[in-house]
């Protein structure tokens, strides 16, 4: 029942957004916004002609069309690209989450480290991704030859996804590890539990609600990282690459750019829901008493 209601709400909002888009477009066309007779429509807000705002029907219709020189319908192409991007993003998500959790553990263990290291962890996120992505790609090609396998460009993309992923996990993981109440810590102390036992039986499980909040952010961030990374790295394949290509060909097929961007959004929603599903399985049974 709950799923049905949520789905209905989602579809309703989707229809509302589509209606808004179409309504605005129809309005702009009706008043002929190229005349600049209206201050906002066609200047602050986008122009409403088919190049700037392809009709919804064209964008969605694009999914089932076969582009020239291709043997697959467009939605199939996007799906393949999405799987490619998802693989890069997932590798980055796994590595980034592990690094984030390791940082959280270290910061929770040594308070001095928290004061010393945390500013750098935060500073790392103020550097624009677009600026460091090419550096990572170049490093990957020229320097990362100490790995037992040959470094591929998609691995650089995963590193970029890692870069966006570790941060929310580190920050929320730290909060989670510090979340047990004093009486719970004293309880473990009264049992003469050692550090590892306290970590495994109290601090880690207590951190899970915080961790899942972070993993949801990290999962969507890993997709963003992979898409931006693909654009910088010039790997063959992936949604980022696809979006870049459609942007070049914008004048001849604006609806394809819109469709590919929609595909990226759907991928982001997919990974978010995937983490939410795992969260329900793991934390769901704790009931209303669970933190956060």
């Amino acid at each position, binding site marked *: 029942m709950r799923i049905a209601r949520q789905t209905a709400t989602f579809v309703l909002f989707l229809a509302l957004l589509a209606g808004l888009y179409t309504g605005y477009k129809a309005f702009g066309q009706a008043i002929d916004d190229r005349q600049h007779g209206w201050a906002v429509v066609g200047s602050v807000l986008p122009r409403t002609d088919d190049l700037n705002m392809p009709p919804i029907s064209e964008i969605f219709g694009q999914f089932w069309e076969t582009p020239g020189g291709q043997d697959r319908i467009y939605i199939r192409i996007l799906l393949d690209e999405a799987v490619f991007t998802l693989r890069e993003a997932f590798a980055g998500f796994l590595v980034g989450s592990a690094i984030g959790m390791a940082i959280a553990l270290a910061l929770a263990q040594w308070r001095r480290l928290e004061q010393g290291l945390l500013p750098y962890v935060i500073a790392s996120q103020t550097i624009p991704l677009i600026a460091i992505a090419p550096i990572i790609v170049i490093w990957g090609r020229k320097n990362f030859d100490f790995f037992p396998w040959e470094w591929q460009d998609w691995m650089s993309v995963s590193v970029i996804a890692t870069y966006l992923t570790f941060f929310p996990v580190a920050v929320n993981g730290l909060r989670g590890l510090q979340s047990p109440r004093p009486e719970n810590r004293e309880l473990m102390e009264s049992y003469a539990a050692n550090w590892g036992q306290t970590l495994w039986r109290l601090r880690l499980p207590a951190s899970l609600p915080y961790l899942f909040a972070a993993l949801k952010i990290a999962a969507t961030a890993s997709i963003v990282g992979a898409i931006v990374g693909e654009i910088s790295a010039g790997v063959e394949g992936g949604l980022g690459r696809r979006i870049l290509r459609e942007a070049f060909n914008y004048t001849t097929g604006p609806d394809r750019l819109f469709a590919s961007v929609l595909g990226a959004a759907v991928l982001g929603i997919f990974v978010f829901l995937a983490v939410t599903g795992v969260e329900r399985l793991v934390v769901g049974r704790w009931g209303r008493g*669970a933190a956060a």
Partner: protein
Amino acid sequence: MNAIHIRGATKVFNPGKSSQVEALADIDLAVEPGEFITLIGPSGCGKSTLLRLISSLALPTTGSVEVNGKPAEQARLDRDYGMAFQTSGLFDWRTVAKNIELPLELMGWSKADRRRRSSEMLELVKLGDFAKHHPSELSGGMQQRVAIARALAFSPSILLMDEPFGALDEMTREHMQDELLRIWRDTGTTLVFVTHSIPEAVYLSTRVVVMSPRPGRIAAVIDVGLGDRQASTRDDPAFFSKVTEVRAALREVEG
């Protein structure tokens, strides 16, 4: 041998700083095995601090605390204590049975032994049907009973309780007191129990330790001697006269 023997214990927080607080002074107390001792006194009289000294969660500034004939720290490492706090402190992510099994896991009991023990303990606190529930599905009183079951699961010789019924309503509270007395009689555990409530102290204990504040001292130790408690005990004139006696002692320490 005394279950607990405290000699000349003091506790000073932040010694030498402007925030220095003398929490406990000149505490001498000997508790026989199987006794039920309550600590009562106004806020800031150091009764929780005294409990923490006994449990070795805090160390005395001077003096000594011996438990079962050894230093309190050693007794903690030997797992001579069970503890229960004002909040049940159950782990949300564990089922009721798994919460009770937590200390047993830490002590390396086998899975079969843990299972058997947790179901025995659940029977003891009359929650046999709730083994697979999570704490959030239980009422406050039931959670507190699970916490007591957890504290008793490894049969510690001493149970230390810091206002465990403080957050419960009056009806649940009286029920829990009877439950605790029954468990105490059945297990022969030595009990040290911190409370704010005079009737609770008198109803539960063999001796009431009345404490005075700033710094915390033992002002009086009152033998209760009411024998086996029954439902009628709460209306017994002897019960009321002990309540009056403890109240008078408390009034004195508050000046």
